[in-house]
Structure formats: structure tokens, C-alpha cells
């Protein structure tokens, strides 16, 4: 009979009685559950950040978001297409197996499998080769500068464990067979997987044999997702949970007022901006013969009409960072000069519209989601109202991500929202190649506005071939400059992240990538 400690009563008595049995339990309530215990199941950023407590990559980000050694101790570039990794010795998996080159090979094989959803996270990977038990060569396409960034999120499996449990290939939902790795785990990380009930509770215990120095004092992490923001707040205030990485913005004053809750808020790496469809004809507008959005004056008019400060103050409760830049300051390639917004100036917006030949404005569809970004629906409503005041007639269309994204993909919109965090690369190359570059080959998958600018494409392509970091970033900044000059997008803000912790959590590290790293968390004794 297995008794599982779950959200206990808020009674001090219960806590006091539970205390001797479990020294320090971190009760963590995220907004939603992780999708699987298998790090190669989806490219979901949140899931990967949770699984990082159990699994580790060859390299990782340190407390300043710089890359540092993890399972690989050091590495060198042997040739433009070959990287050599020297693996850490003496590392053991949770089941006791030794960590060797075979594990790296098996993991890379699994992640690059034809059916692996995570294949796109390692775009330049060609093959890998075992040199000796603790040395691995990774072959990549020519001059790829961002391999290390990609590897931070490629978690390493134990080869023997994969073979024993017939999980060498990634789980293929289409085959209808449950993958062993979906509900079991065996990594090298600071915590061991104990049990899991999807959407209800997942439990991790400390790994006493971790190779790295233990800086935390957590013995057990119990993760219980609470989707309703109101309930999450109630649970925090009444002490039923210790930590949430999604504190609802509107409830932050109340949480701050509560004596047993501490709020940590900061700006995320994710920039929210508006995309404008560049097709020759508008999708849904009273202008039927052409597309007003192809005119830079119209794009600037839309920009000038938005009172970003009001959105920051009211919709985002003063917690977002209003921006004119497509990337956050922490992202390499960011230039402070590009972080200036076009002024909020409704009269100028009207004048620009008149100049462009639309003195009475025009109607267009405005596509938004209600589940994707922080307060996205409210942002869209506020922006619609602002546009309406300069004579534009936006038709706001809000729906779930699944339905709206299909519309974005097929250009069935005029204006819409997009957010980009540059995960997991943490480099502006990510947004440039995926969002700004025209749709060619692997590039431009999220170029929803269907931009085709040869000059900007050239700059991005060149950056992708440049190994020298400084030269590469200069090229990327130039590309971002051009995107601003053309008013290709209307940046809104870097969205805020807000965590909240109970009084028994002393220290928790919050970085701008919005990932919890509980191996650096300290609970009160």
C-alpha cells in the first residue's frame, strides 16, 4: 500500500507532524503539467526545464546564462564540421550504471531519429563517433556556431536502460504503444524520479550521489499542477503549496500583501510583438484590391496608435518591459539603440493613414490566442480599442492556440500576435532564422507575415555561416536594424514572469529564461 503525500491540509498541525518524516519537501504548483517524463517527447520548454532536474545535457547554462560544462568536462572544435567532447568521469545514472560515450551516442541517435519531435532542436547534427569510453566526436554541417546552445537541451539517457526497456527509438504516438520512457526515468541529475500521475502529481527525490556539489537542501519535490489561477493563489496563501512559477499578474498585490508569500518577478526573454500579413491582397478587409499592410506608412500608423505604456500599466499590472526591440536585452545580438519605440501619437497615426490613402481607416482581421502568452487576450482587446480610436476597424478574433496557429500558418489573418523567447538557443539567430527569414528550406517556419526581403535574408544566411561570435552578432544586429527600419513587426513588450514562494522557501534562483532550477534552491530549516 503506497501512501502519497499530496496537497496537505493547511493546518499547522499536519505540517508539524509531517516534518520529521520528510526533512524538506518542495511543493510546486505549476499552471499545467509536464507532458511526459520523456525529454524527447515534445519540444515543450516547460517540460524540458522540469525534466532537467532528472536528466542533464553535455553542457548547461550557469547562473548568468553562460554555457558551462555539465556531463562534458571540456570540448574543442577539431575541424569546421567536427566537435570533440571529453566526458566527465565517475558520473553514475540513478540506477547505478556508469556514464560513458555509449550513452551519448545512444541519446544522440534517439534524438535525431526520423520520428523524434525534438529533431529540430539539433538542426546541424550529422553523426557522432566514439573515440574512447569518455570521448565523443560530433559531426555537424559546415560552420555551425550554435551547437553548444542546442546541446543544453539534449538530455542524456543511459544506453543500457534504453536497450533493456526497448526504448532506443523515441515514442511514436501513431503506433499506439506506450513508451517506457514516458512514465519512467533514469538520468544523472540532482533528483531521482519517484512516481507520476499525469495532471495530478509527480514526485522527485534527491539524488545523494549526484556528481556536482549539492547546493540545495530539498529532499523531495512534489509537483501538483493547478490550472486555475485563482485556485493557485488560494493554495499559496493558505500554505498548501510552496512554489509556483506562474503567479497570476493580477493577484500579485494580494500575494505581496500576504505575510507568508513572497513574489519574485522579472522580465522574461520572450518578446511579444504583432505580425502583419504581407500577402498581395488583404485577407479580410474592406480594401479588396490590395493589401494596405504592405505600405510602410500603414504599418507605422498601426505602431504609432498603440499606447504601450497604458498596456504596461493596466493590462500587465506594471510588470512588463515595454520595448521597441524584437529581442530581450539578455539575448546576444540585442542593440540598445534599437530598443526605442515609435512614439504613441494617435494624430500622427491618423495623418499617416491619410497619407497612405486611408483617411477613414480600413477594416482587417486581428488574430489572437487566449492560452499562449501572459494576458494575451486582454492585450489584444486593449490594442483593438486603441486602433479603433484612430479610425481603424480591427475584427478581433480570439481562440485557442491550436485553432489560431493553423490560421497563422495558412495566412488566414491580417494582423496577429507572436512571441519569441529564442529558446533553447538563447541567441537572436533563432528569431532571425525562424521568424524574419523568408520561407526557404528549414528557415522561416514562423515567418507568419510571409516577408521576403533579400537583403535581410542575405544578412541572416551569412550569420549562419560565421563562426566568429563578434562578427556573427554584428551581422545579426544589422538584420534586426533592417527589420526595425522596415517596421516589419510592432514590438509590444518583454512579458513578465512572476514566481511566488511560501515563507519556508529561503532562496530560489530566477533567471530570465523563466526556468526553475531547484538544485540551487534553499528551503528554511
Amino acid at each position, binding site marked *: 500500500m503506497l501512501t502519497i503525500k499530496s496537497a496537505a491540509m493547511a493546518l499547522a498541525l499536519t505540517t508539524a507532524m509531517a516534518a520529521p518524516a520528510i526533512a524538506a519537501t518542495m511543493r510546486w504548483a505549476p499552471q499545467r503539467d509536464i507532458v511526459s517524463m520523456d525529454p524527447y517527447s515534445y519540444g515543450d520548454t516547460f517540460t524540458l526545464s522540469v525534466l532537467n532536474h532528472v536528466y542533464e545535457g553535455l553542457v548547461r547554462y550557469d547562473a548568468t546564462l553562460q554555457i558551462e560544462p555539465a556531463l562534458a568536462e571540456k570540448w574543442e572544435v577539431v575541424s569546421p564540421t567536427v566537435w570533440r567532447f571529453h566526458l566527465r568521469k565517475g558520473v553514475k545514472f540513478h540506477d547505478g550504471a556508469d556514464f560513458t560515450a555509449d550513452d551519448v551516442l545512444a541519446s544522440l541517435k534517439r534524438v535525431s531519429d526520423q520520428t523524434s519531435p525534438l529533431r529540430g532542436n539539433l538542426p546541424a547534427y550529422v553523426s557522432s563517433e566514439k573515440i574512447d569510453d569518455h570521448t565523443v566526436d560530433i559531426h555537424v554541417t559546415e560552420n555551425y556556431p550554435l551547437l553548444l546552445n542546442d546541446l543544453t537541451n539534449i538530455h542524456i539517457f543511459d544506453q543500457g536502460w534504453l536497450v533493456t526497456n526497448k526504448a532506443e527509438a523515441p515514442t511514436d504516438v501513431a503506433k499506439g504503444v506506450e513508451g517506457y520512457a514516458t512514465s519512467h526515468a533514469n538520468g544523472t541529475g540532482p533528483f531521482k524520479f519517484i512516481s507520476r500521475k499525469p495532471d495530478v502529481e509527480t514526485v522527485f527525490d534527491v539524488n545523494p550521489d549526484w556528481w556536482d556539489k549539492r547546493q540545495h537542501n530539498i529532499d523531495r519535490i512534489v509537483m501538483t499542477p493547478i490550472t*486555475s*489561477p*485563482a485556485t493557485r*493563489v*488560494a493554495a499559496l*496563501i493558505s500554505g498548501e503549496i510552496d512554489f509556483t512559477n506562474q503567479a*497570476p499578474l*493580477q*493577484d500579485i*498585490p*494580494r500575494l505581496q500583501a500576504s505575510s507568508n508569500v513572497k513574489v519574485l518577478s522579472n522580465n522574461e526573454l520572450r518578446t511579444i510583438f504583432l505580425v502583419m500579413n504581407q500577402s498581395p491582397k488583404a485577407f*479580410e478587409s474592406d480594401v479588396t484590391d490590395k493589401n494596405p499592410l504592405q505600405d510602410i506608412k500603414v504599418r507605422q500608423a498601426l505602431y504609432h496608435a498603440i*499606447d504601450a505604456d*497604458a*498596456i504596461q*500599466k*493596466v*493590462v500587465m499590472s506594471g510588470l512588463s518591459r515595454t520595448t521597441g526591440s524584437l529581442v530581450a536585452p539578455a539575448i546576444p545580438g540585442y542593440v540598445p539603440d534599437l530598443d526605442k519605440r515609435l512614439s504613441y501619437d494617435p494624430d500622427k497615426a491618423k495623418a499617416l493613414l491619410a497619407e497612405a490613402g486611408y483617411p477613414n481607416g480600413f477594416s482587417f*482581421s486581428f488574430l489572437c490566442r487566449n492560452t499562449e502568452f501572459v494576458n494575451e*487576450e*486582454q492585450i489584444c*482587446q*486593449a490594442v*483593438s*480599442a486603441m486602433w*479603433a*480610436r484612430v479610425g481603424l476597424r480591427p*475584427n*478581433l*478574433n*480570439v*481562440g485557442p492556440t491550436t*485553432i489560431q496557429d493553423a*490560421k497563422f500558418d495558412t495566412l*488566414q489573418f491580417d494582423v496577429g500576435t507572436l512571441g519569441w523567447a529564442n529558446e533553447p538557443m538563447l541567441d537572436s539567430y533563432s528569431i532571425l532564422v525562424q521568424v524574419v527569414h523568408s520561407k526557404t528550406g528549414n528557415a522561416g517556419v514562423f515567418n507568419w507575415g510571409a516577408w521576403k526581403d533579400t537583403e535581410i535574408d542575405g544578412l541572416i544566411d551569412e550569420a549562419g555561416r560565421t563562426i566568429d561570435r563578434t562578427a556573427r552578432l554584428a551581422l545579426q544586429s544589422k538584420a534586426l536594424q533592417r527589420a526595425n527600419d522596415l517596421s516589419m513587426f510592432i514590438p509590444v513588450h518583454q512579458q513578465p514572469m512572476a514566481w511566488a514562494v511560501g515563507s519556508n522557501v529561503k532562496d530560489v534562483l530566477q533567471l530570465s529564461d523563466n526556468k526553475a532550477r531547484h538544485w540551487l534552491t534553499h528551503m528554511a530549516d
Partner: protein
Amino acid sequence: MSVEPKVERETLRVHFARLWDSDLAWNFRNSPLAVVSATVLLVIAFTSIFAGVLMPQNPFDIMQLFLDKANLPPVWSEGGAMPYVLGTDMQGRDVLSAIVYGSRISLVIGVASVAVSMTIGVLVGLLAGYIGGALDNFLMRLADAVMSIPTLLVAILVSAIFRGLLPVEYRDTFAPLILVLALSLTSWVVYARMVRAVTMVEARKEYVMAARIINVPRRRIILKHILPNVMTPALVTGTLNLGLAILAEATLSFLGVGMPSAQPSLGTLIRLGNQYFFSGTWWIVLFPALQLTLIILAVNLLGDWLRDALNPKLK
């Protein structure tokens, strides 16, 4: 049929006097609960019909929403300001206006779905009961099938089907229609079963037999003789079901499959407000919840009274 206006007014007066003296009216005047409920409903109906004139703001018009007027508390609290009597939400929408416009949507959808389901149900019941045979069998099996799926699930399903079939840009426009359909598709069964039973009894009565023998057309028998007999119980059932219909619409909207946030019904307002329940802006959720409860309670009390009044057996 043309009648002199004067005569018509005269007959109206007579009719009214007769109505006033009837058992029903006497019963109504002497039931404080029924009088209070009816008054509440009349006030709510009046304000929602004339919302455009009475309310300080049209909450559907984004031009009238100002972010700097967002999150104002009710006027009697500190920081509240006229004309936002019950405060504003985080888009600067006046809560009172939103409630009154929202009540209009809730009432219209409730009444429409009762009307639609009653029409379908009475028709099906008359046909099944009077004609009988294979038609009766088929219609009643269909009714069984509909009743075999929990009502709430049917409504969610139907709502999803139609939303899926419609192009996205029409979904919001047709949302009320979809809801009426979703609610009607299950509730007609109640009327059909009841009407069928009454019809079968009436059809065997002597006067119907006599009419049949002298070759009165079937349609005429059904409309002139049987229909009047089923209308009273159908109307009582309708009133009793109105409360359920309004409640069901609110539940669907609360779950996010009903009215969209651009044209919120009371259920939608509660769903939206629920996100801000602990942020101190309690007025965003509490007032719509009170109004919704008040409407349903008034309708239910009135329906309950009507049933008892028309069913003297229970007195």
C-alpha cells in the same frame, strides 16, 4: 378579419376584466412570492431591452473602453467614480452596463431555446401521439437516443460541432444561435413526451372521435381540438425549463464553450471575473453572479407558482 378599433378595444377591456377576475389572477395577487418574482423579472427585462438608453456605456463598443478607467471599484468604495456605479473591469468596461447587456443575452438565449424546443417538442408530440404507429415508434426511439446522452455533454458537443463547422470569423456572430440550438436539441424531448401522452388521451375522447366520423380534416382536429389542450401543460413546462435553460447557457459560457468574451453573457462575465477573484477586484465576478442567481431564482419561483396554480390537485 377586420374589426372596428373601438370594438377591439372594448373586447380587450372585457378580456382583461375577465383575466383579472380569473382564478389564476386571483391566485397571483395573493401569492407574494409570485408578485415579487414577476416584478424582478419585469425590471430586469425592461432594463435589458432599453439598455442602450439606460446604461452609461455600450460594453460591446471598444471605442467606449478606456484603459485609464480600468479596475475602478464601485462608487461607494474609495476610488470609485460615476458613472461606473458598480465599478469597471480591467478593460475599462462598466460592470453595471456589462451585467445589463449580459442579462439581455442570457434572457434572449434562454427564452429562444425554450421557444424552439417547445415548438419542436409540441409538434413531435402531436404527430407521434395522434398518428402513432411507425412514426411514433421512430420519434420516440429518437427521443430515447437523445436522452441517453447527458444533457450537458450534448450541449458541449453540439456547440463544438457548429463552432467547428462555421468559419472562424462567423463564430462570434452566430454564437447565440449555436447556443440556442445546442440547448434545444435535448430539451424538446420533455415537451414531446408530455404532449404525446396528453394527445393520446385526447384522441380517444368522444368529441375527437365524433369529429373524425364527420370527416373533419386531420390537421384541423390536431390544431383546433388537441393543441389547445396541450398548450397549458406545455407552457408550464416551458416556464419551469426557462430557469434550466438560462442555467445551462451560463454553465456553457463559464466553461468557455458558450458566448465569447467580446459579447459576454452573464456566464462569460463570471468566467472572466473568476480569474480576478483574489486580486481584490471582487466586483467583477460578484455582481454578475448575483444577477444570474436572481434571474434564475425569479424564473423558477414563477414557474413553480404557475404549476401549482394550474394544477389544483396539489393544493
